[in-house]
């Protein structure tokens, strides 16, 4: 019995050691992604399709600046600085400007490793050569079907992310991002961070800023999610004027420490059509449901069944007609 106890302790100690080692790599990777200056070209594989993009990132005295631009398909760009994120889409002739939320301080991986380990297994695997660099492979494996897993190839010299896979519960890659060229340098030319699309003549939507979408009320939500996967907790709640007609939308954010889900609840106008069903953008799933005259929309980088389960469980604390 004593030997069995010692063996169990040794095994659990090894698991924690593996988790801790993997966590250190992930922390360093998060720091590198935010603090290094880099200019790279990468491919994004999803649903059997391949897109090529360029990312330019700089951190300086004015904070972070980032530019993501498509090199294949329709011209699309995302620009981020410390204040705003701007998405310019040539195919839909639209520009969406959102407020940038303050960065979470390092490290990004939750401190509560015990809690995280209940839902994911973190492992540091061997080394692999990727985009001409030696990398360490780190895996995050979900312990149930409500969340995705991850595989990261992290540069052993500077902790930069070279490749990432988002995996389903069977470990199959459903999305891949892989650098084919990456240059880390001290400075980035200003021109490399400037958009090539002007957005002139496009339909502009501004949301999230205090001037355009003031927070009406925080406090506690009027709506409740009655069914959540284990480990997901409410991390943010706001009621904001996000609709085009100026009406407010209730926004709840749930996270298990890695994956995030948003629940939006809005009251529909008398002539508005409600939406229902599933939509997806790669591994990002959305499910729309209707409760009375309210539209429920759940979005998250979790499996389709998870957003569906959450969406159909949303109900008001009080009757919907109040």
């Amino acid at each position, binding site marked *: 019995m004593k030997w069995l106890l010692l063996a169990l302790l040794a095994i659990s100690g090894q698991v924690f050691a593996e988790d801790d080692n993997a966590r250190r790599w992930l922390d360093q*990777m998060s720091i590198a*992604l935010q603090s290094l200056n880099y200019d790279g070209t990468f*491919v994004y*594989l999803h649903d059997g*399709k*391949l*897109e*090529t993009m360029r990312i330019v990132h700089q951190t300086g005295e004015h904070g972070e600046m980032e530019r993501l*631009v*498509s090199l*294949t*398909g*329709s011209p699309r760009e*995302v620009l981020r600085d410390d204040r705003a*994120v701007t998405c310019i*889409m040539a195919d*839909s002739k639209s520009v*969406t400007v959102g407020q940038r*939320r303050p960065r979470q301080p390092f490290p990004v991986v939750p401190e509560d490793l015990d809690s995280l380990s209940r839902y994911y297994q973190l492992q540091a695997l061997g*080394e692999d*050569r990727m985009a*001409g660099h030696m990398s360490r*492979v780190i895996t995050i494996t979900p312990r*149930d*079907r409500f969340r995705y897993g*991850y595989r990261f190839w992290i540069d052993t010299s500077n902790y930069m992310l070279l490749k*990432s896979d988002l995996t389903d519960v*069977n470990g*199959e890659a459903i999305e*891949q*991002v892989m650098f*084919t*060229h990456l240059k880390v340098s001290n400075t980035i030319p200003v021109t*490399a961070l400037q958009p*090539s699309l002007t957005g002139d003549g496009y*339909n502009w*939507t501004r949301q999230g800023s205090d001037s355009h979408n003031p927070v009406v009320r925080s406090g506690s939500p009027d709506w409740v999610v009655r069914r959540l996967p284990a480990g997901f907790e409410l*991390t943010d709640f706001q009621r904001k004027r*996000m*609709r085009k*007609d100026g009406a407010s939308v209730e926004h709840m954010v749930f996270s298990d420490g*890695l994956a*995030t889900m*948003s629940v939006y609840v*809005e009251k*529909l106008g008398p002539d*508005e*059509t*409600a*939406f*229902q*069903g599933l*939509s997806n*953008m790669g591994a990002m799933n959305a499910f*729309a449901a209707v409760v009375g005259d309210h539209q429920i929309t759940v*979005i998250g*980088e979790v499996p389709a*069944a998870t957003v*569906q389960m959450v969406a*159909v469980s949303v109900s008001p604390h009080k009757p919907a007609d109040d």
Partner: protein
Amino acid sequence: MTEKLHEQISALVDDELAAAEQTLLIKRLEGDVTLRNSLLRYQLISDSLQNHLPRKVDPDFNIGVQLALQDDPEIRVRSAGLARLFKPVAGLAIAASVAVVAVLSLQSVRQESPSATATMAVAPVTDEFIRADGTPLLANSHAHPSAGAQSLDVYLVNHNEYAVNRGMQGMLPYVRLVGHDMNVDDKE
């Protein structure tokens, strides 16, 4: 398209293009659809040859790569340049692959939780965002007809800021926004 441009694109894919040339070429790529499609073909071929494609791909994917090779005489002419993609894989890479397979094998024998199985049966899942009256709606703002209702794009941008802040995926949420060309998706 000139032979020099093809050489530059091939070199870009191989990460062998000089920095100054890279800047010029990428600037040119941003404004030239034909050139971008050519880059896509080179990227497909390179990834296929280096076995960097996902395990689960469209069954016609390799055929597509072969057709891309056959259809582009300039690429065929430049086959000597592509030969350098056949680089030996490091022994450590093989070891890592074995380790990944080991993890996946362990994962595949894990039992599904009863609650997860129940979740899958909550309601029939449609394959696209639809209105309550049954007509389809694509997940991008220009397809949204209502002046009052919120578009999915706006929610996606809003949600991404929370996901980026909390997760470790860097720009991945935005990669989805940039990478999903709705026009291309519609045609397929």
